[in-house]
């Protein structure tokens, strides 16, 4: 019997694997011919990254050497591009005139890297990352040293950048999105990956759009971004995705979508022609990873060797990054969504982040960083759709723990632990040391155990284990203690620990805090995000970038939201002083924008109520033009400084209370605080400015200035307490700024000054502000912070900052439905 002729276009991973699978099933069925455009045998394209990094040689990644082709009597036309498929004659023709007739044809033409059509894209030194030629070009460039830019922070781009950094280049990755590998990673894992890459000499620029490639003498010299930044480089790698190579198929009339369209048997619209790998589109998906390709090859081989009932049903994907020492795993719906539940585990000490997404008791996806040992297990659970409800408690700790504890209740599991097993990783305390201390020293509380063994005294993540040990050792005598109230349900840490560790560990972003303090949710909630944002602003003035999306609407929009979704606008009136000109402008604005209500506030200024959100920038522009700025009537920060008319007018006035109020407000405006801060200055003890129910109040007397703190006149009514008395106006300003700074640094988010005072004690505050050195240090920190705060947020937005916030997404719906 004559053999059937099988022709394969593509000598890559898919084409050769398909041939191997066919040979495995029936070595004698086909006479096989393979065309490949690269002038070499088949190699493992995935391992090009380690070749680039110098961790492997080309010989290590060859999949099928020349002997393999010979042994199986395969005709290989290497370096020979097929230019035409004649489906009528069942013949393929190559550029060099080679022809081959087929009974069955396999298209395995793979994909081409996408080249961005940027100006300068044709300069020498601009490459993609697809084949060995690209790697050789990159290695040659790296030998000359210098700087490399990689456009694209996906899997391939990061591996390219890492490889180039390993070869001694300074590599910078430019990524359009805010998260590296955003198709595989959530923000928390992306943050850890970014830090790990920085440690390995790869810089990353996120949210950056490329504008043009710059060159000198026909050679690349840098990349210009849309925002004007220029990053110099002598090598530029584009790794922005792949495009299935479908030209051949389209030219011969096969059905082509994004890829060559195939059915579940990998058959194209011509039953004699099949397509597999990256060039194929199956059920609307063109895959770019290797696992689905192997599955396609198995199905195709079954079809070609006459196995009935075989079908490829699509693939569930998993991804791993090949950067030495950086373990990343991602699979399935890692970012959760409708009806999903997250289980999160973080180990700050080991740099581990794990997130497993459950849906109806089944694993729907996972993202792992730093410890990916259980990636395969989660992936299997996901593929098999096994019910894991019963494993819920231990799932996140991995397969070994889960299986060891299966059917065991957590208390007996703790009882069963060996005495030598470590409980507290931070302080290296074993189970035996804790149980011995409990028994010998008669410890009964968590605090006792912390004091005597240091277990659970640092990061606190072993607290549940220590409590179970107490319960097991003491039996019924143990009653669980309540520690400091956690910030919210996303963490077991209280505000104090969070604030202290942000400063002591130099944590400078929300993801950094969440990782270091082992937050138990992927990205926090509406309670903790604003708190962390404030703590970071306070700890790192001028350094931390405010996260607008972590602010309540009022602080994001710089106006106060009302019950009907409109806003109120309150311009600042310094110390409650205004002028005919300001009042005229306010009246004009109210008329021009048909503002329905104008009201005098309790803080001595004017409130424009009922402003539509879209009108806010225009309202502010008019107010700004008359010299007025935001009154921050919406801020967790300095609100008003109320004054009386003092010695300027009042026959009883003892000091210039208005002048002091204006001076304080002009210096302190724009400062953020844990909660709102209201000040007042009264010119004499008759106290017309009602200073003794404010957060900080000044009562002027003949001999100087009494400074009072801790008043409240809202939900809670309380008079102030006298903190201190100073002789001069300068000292009054220094002292008030020092108190404010102390509160800014120590207060818990949303804790007003009176509550903070009750918590820390008036004496503690007094000791700080009456010590001249401490007062000066506090004042200096406040003054430094104010260098970045006294900017009018209204003027910034009139100038176009965050313009999207105030415009509807689109007016198309209005047009279409008008």
């Amino acid at each position, binding site marked *: 019997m004559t053999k059937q002729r099988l022709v394969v276009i593509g000598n890559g991973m898919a084409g050769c694997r398909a041939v191997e699978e066919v040979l495995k099933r029936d070595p004698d069925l086909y006479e096989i011919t393979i065309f490949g455009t690269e002038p070499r045998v088949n190699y493992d394209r995935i391992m090009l990254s380690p070749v680039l990094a110098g961790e492997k040689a080309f010989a290590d990644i060859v999949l099928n050497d020349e002997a393999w082709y010979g042994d199986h009597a395969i005709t290989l036309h290497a370096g020979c591009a097929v230019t035409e498929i004649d489906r009528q004659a069942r013949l393929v023709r190559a550029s060099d005139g080679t022809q081959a007739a087929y009974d069955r044809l396999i298209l395995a033409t793979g994909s081409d890297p996408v080249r961005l059509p940027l100006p300068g894209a044709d300069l020498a030194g601009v490459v993609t990352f697809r084949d060995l030629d690209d790697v050789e070009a990159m290695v040659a460039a790296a030998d000359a040293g210098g700087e490399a830019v990689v456009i694209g922070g996906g899997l391939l781009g990061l591996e390219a950048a890492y490889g180039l950094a390993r070869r001694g280049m300074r590599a910078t990755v430019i990524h359009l*999105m*805010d*998260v590296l590998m*955003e198709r595989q990673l*959530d*923000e928390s894992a992306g943050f850890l990956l970014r830090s790990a890459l920085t440690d390995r000499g790869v810089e990353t620029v996120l949210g950056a759009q490329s504008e043009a490639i710059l060159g000198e003498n026909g050679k690349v010299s840098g990349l210009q971004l849309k925002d004007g930044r220029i990053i110099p480089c002598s090598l530029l790698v584009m790794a922005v995705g792949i495009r299935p190579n479908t030209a051949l198929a389209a030219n011969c009339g096969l059905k082509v*979508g*994004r890829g060559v369209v195939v059915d579940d048997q990998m058959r194209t619209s011509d039953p004699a022609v099949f397509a597999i790998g990256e060039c194929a589109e199956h059920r*609307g998906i063109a895959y770019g990873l290797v696992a689905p390709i192997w599955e396609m090859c198995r199905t195709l081989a079954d079809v070609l060797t006459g196995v009935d009932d075989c079908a490829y049903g699509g693939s569930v994907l998993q991804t791993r990054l090949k950067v030495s020492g950086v373990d990343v795993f991602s699979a399935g719906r890692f*970012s*959760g*969504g*409708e*009806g*999903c539940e*997250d289980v999160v585990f973080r180990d700050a000490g080991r740099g581990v982040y794990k997130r497993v997404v459950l849906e109806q008791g089944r694993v729907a996806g996972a993202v792992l960083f730093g410890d990916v040992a259980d990636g395969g297990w989660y992936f299997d659970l996901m593929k098999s759709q096994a019910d894991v409800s019963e494993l819920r408690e231990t799932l996140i700790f991995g397969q070994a723990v889960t299986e060891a504890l299966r059917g065991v209740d957590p208390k007996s599991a703790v009882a069963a632990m060996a005495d030598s097993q470590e409980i507290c990783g931070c302080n290296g305390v074993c189970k035996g040391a804790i149980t011995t201390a409990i028994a010998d020293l008669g410890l009964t509380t968590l605090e006792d155990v912390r004091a005597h063994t240091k277990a659970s005294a640092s990061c606190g993540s072993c607290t549940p284990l220590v409590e179970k040990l107490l319960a097991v050792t003491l039996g019924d005598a143990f009653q669980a203690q309540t520690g400091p109230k956690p910030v919210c349900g996303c963490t077991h840490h209280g505000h104090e620990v969070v604030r202290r560790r942000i400063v002591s560990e130099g944590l400078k972003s929300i993801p950094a805090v969440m990782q270091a303090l082992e937050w138990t*949710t*992927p*990205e*926090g*909630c*509406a309670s903790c*995000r*604003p708190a962390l944002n404030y703590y970071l602003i306070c700890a790192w003035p001028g350094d931390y970038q405010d996260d*607008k*999306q*972590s*602010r*309540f*609407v*009022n602080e*994001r*929009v710089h106006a106060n*939201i009302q*019950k*009907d*979704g409109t806003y109120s606008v309150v311009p600042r009136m310094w110390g409650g002083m205004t002028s005919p000109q300001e009042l005229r402008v306010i009246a004009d604005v109210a008329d021009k924008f048909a503002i329905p209500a104008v009201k005098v506030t309790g803080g001595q200024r004017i409130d424009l109520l009922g402003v539509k*959100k879209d009108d806010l920038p225009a309202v502010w522009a008019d107010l700004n033009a008359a010299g007025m700025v935001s009154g921050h009537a919406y801020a967790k920060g300095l609100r008003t400084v109320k004054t009386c008319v003092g010695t300027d007018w009042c026959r009883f006035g003892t000091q210039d209370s208005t002048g002091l109020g204006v001076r304080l407000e002009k210096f302190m405006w724009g400062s953020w605080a844990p909660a709102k801060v209201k000040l007042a200055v009264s010119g004499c003890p008759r106290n017309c400015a009602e200073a003794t129910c404010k957060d900080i109040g000044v009562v002027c007397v003949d001999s100087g200035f009494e400074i009072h703190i801790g008043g409240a006149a809202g939900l809670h009514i309380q008079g102030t307490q006298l903190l201190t008395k100073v002789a001069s106006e300068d000292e009054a300003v220094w002292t008030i700024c020092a108190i404010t700074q102390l509160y800014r640094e120590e207060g818990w988010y949303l804790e007003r000054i009176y509550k903070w005072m009750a918590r820390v004690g008036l004496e503690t505050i007094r000791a700080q502000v009456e010590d001249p050195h401490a007062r000066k240090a506090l004042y200096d920190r406040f003054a430094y912070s104010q260098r970045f705060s006294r900017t009018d947020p209204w003027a910034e937005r009139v100038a176009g900052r965050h313009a*999207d916030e105030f415009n*509807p*997404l*689109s*007016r*198309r*719906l*209005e047009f*279409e*439905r008008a």
Partner: protein
Amino acid sequence: MNALVKDPQITWIDVGAATDIPRRGARRLKGPQGEIAIFRTGDGQVFALMDACPHKGGPLSQGIVHGASVTCPLHGRVIDLATGESLGADAGKGCAPVVPLQVRDGRLFIGLAGS
């Protein structure tokens, strides 16, 4: 998603690019039945709801987005972005209607009833 779900009862209207919505934020849109809020989560998923909290009608588009939920700016009710249902202690106490939304090639399409 490569093709829009075909349903003669629904007209799909291109309202902008997914990246026009800030991450962990929202944008508003005037619809025939009232304001629509389109949200984008930290993970880049997009959702559309009528922009009115089931509690007191607060503009959900102005709330803080966390995970696949938003907290209403008026009284702090937490709403599931995928279903519009109230969450936590308010579970079962009403729902913000979901607006059909599809993403194709990075563009957002809002589905309106009728043609």
